[in-house]
């Protein structure tokens, strides 16, 4: 397959991981042997391989089922947040590039201000203000990553705006909306996808940090980060309840990173050989 050749070994490994987790995110809950909140064992922090494949958690619930349920939250939340950041970053970035200077300046300064507020503390304030909900988590993480996306998108858009094909369109008498939509945007999609992919990884990690601080998905549901957090007590005894979700987080992020790396590596290779 051409795709695998482009990706290389590590890229293929990454892609398989990503597809695996996507599958889990889609069908995990249907595959889970137990409902997510059901207590299945009298003992807590059971080891791997007993009646419950991956042992039990701190309340005696089935870890495998909880991971199968939790993956969906992690993947969907992080993906939605990364895409939100990408969408906001790109739209504002293009807007800044085609707008008069003062719009660009004030937007950029505002983003500077936003980026300097630590993400976790921003999340803390927002959750304290509005209470935790899935939508809010997406918005928080999305907004927290918007300035970063904006910076990249803006610099891309400003460069593209100077390109001859945009100048031609401008000299043709096209309006700003056409320039942004038809000329600039299509050329940003590819590099921004890479950026959004990276932000997906960060979003997974930020979400799990938020779960550590006790903000996050509502019980009895839990995303992978919350699973790690709520079972931290079992860490000292090496309970799978804490290790398995942590491994799951690592595999999700490593998979996405590998795919991005190999895609990016290829782009720069072709650029380098010209």
């Amino acid at each position, binding site marked *: 397959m051409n795709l695998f050749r482009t990706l290389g070994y590590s890229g293929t490994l990454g892609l398989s991981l990503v597809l695996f987790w996507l599958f889990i995110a889609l069908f995990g809950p249907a595959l889970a042997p137990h409902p997510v909140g059901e207590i299945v064992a009298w003992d807590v922090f059971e080891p791997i391989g007993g009646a419950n494949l991956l042992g039990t958690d701190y309340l005696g619930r089935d870890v495998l089922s909880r991971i199968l349920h939790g993956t969906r939250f992690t993947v969907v939340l992080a993906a939605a947040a990364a895409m939100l950041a990408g969408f906001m970053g790109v739209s504002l970035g293009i807007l800044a590039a085609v707008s008069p200077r003062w719009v660009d300046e004030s937007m950029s300064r505002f983003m500077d201000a936003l980026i300097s507020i630590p993400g976790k503390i921003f999340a803390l304030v927002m959750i304290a203000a509005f209470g935790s909900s899935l939508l809010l988590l997406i918005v928080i993480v999305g907004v927290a990553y918007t300035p970063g996306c904006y910076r990249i998108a803006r610099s891309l858009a400003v460069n593209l705006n100077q390109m001859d094909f945009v100048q031609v369109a401008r000299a043709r008498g096209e309006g700003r909306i056409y320039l942004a939509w038809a000329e600039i945007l299509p050329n940003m999609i590819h590099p921004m996808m890479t950026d959004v992919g990276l932000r997906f990884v960060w979003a997974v990690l930020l979400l799990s940090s938020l779960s550590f601080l006790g903000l996050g998905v509502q019980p009895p549901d839990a995303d992978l980060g919350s699973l*790690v957090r709520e079972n931290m007590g079992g860490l000292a005894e090496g309970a799978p309840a804490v290790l398995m979700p942590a491994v799951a987080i690592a595999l999700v992020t490593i998979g996405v990173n590998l795919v991005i790396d190999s895609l990016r590596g290829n782009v720069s290779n072709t650029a380098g050989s010209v």
Partner: protein
Amino acid sequence: MMHIMQLIARRAGTALFILLLVSAVVFSLSSLLPGDAAQQLLGQSATPEALAALRESLGLDKPGYVRYVTWLKGLLIGDPGVSLANNMPVAELVAERLPRSLVLAGIAALVSVPIALTLGILSAMYGGSRLDRVLNFTTLCMVAIPEFLVATVLVLIFAVKLGWVSSLSYAPPGASLGQFLSAYALPVVTLFFVLVAQMARMSRAAVLDQLSEPYVEMAVLKGASLPRVVLRHALPNAIGPIANAVALSMSYLLGGVVIVEVIFNYPGIASLMVDSVANRDMPLLQTCAMIFCAAYLLLVLIADVCAIVSNPKLRT
């Protein structure tokens, strides 16, 4: 030199503006928070009468923007006000915490930056080799593990199991070097995990970027060895982007270390800010936000200056 001075002056102007913006943003964000300092202080035992009395004595009966303007005016004369939670001057609270944060950040930076840059440069130098792939994968894994897990595992192994170091990162004033190392070892290693991967990967990219430039080919065709090509030719031109990457990572060291502060019980400025959110302590919250913002801007400015000094085109 004139150029750099001008740049710094212009940046300082913009920075002041952004600081103002941050305080406004933080103020509007925090005005969304339900409850106020009085309710937090009284907690479960809040009765309407007690609340009203406390609000009046804290000045919370005045409208929000009045309090904001008062705080802002105070800041202009160098007084960020008094904490609503415990009546202590905000300046005093910050002066207690900030040096600690700076010490932790400083040590973490001293350890992480040289190692990260070495790894990144090595990785770029032998791009595509086995070393590169191993380093790449290692840094990838370091990014992929949540920091609280790293911290806790470190504590379990090195403090609880082996007893080599302290599980609390607290060194009393006048601590011996041994106490100092024992206290800072684990938080620094944790932060190292968080920071090193990002910096290493970005410096690798920056150096690789330069390695595709024609002048590098020229150096190769002059018979220069690989280390010479990378260190003498590519690196000086990669300083700008590397400095930028380092600055972004460093800015994380002040505000982003909440979790490290929680796990190691380190009384730094990030947990001070978290407290101020929990206590709805607006003067403190805003002052902390300003500190983070100022630190961020300062780091970015330093990175800019590095880029300028390293680039003769901009220098003259």
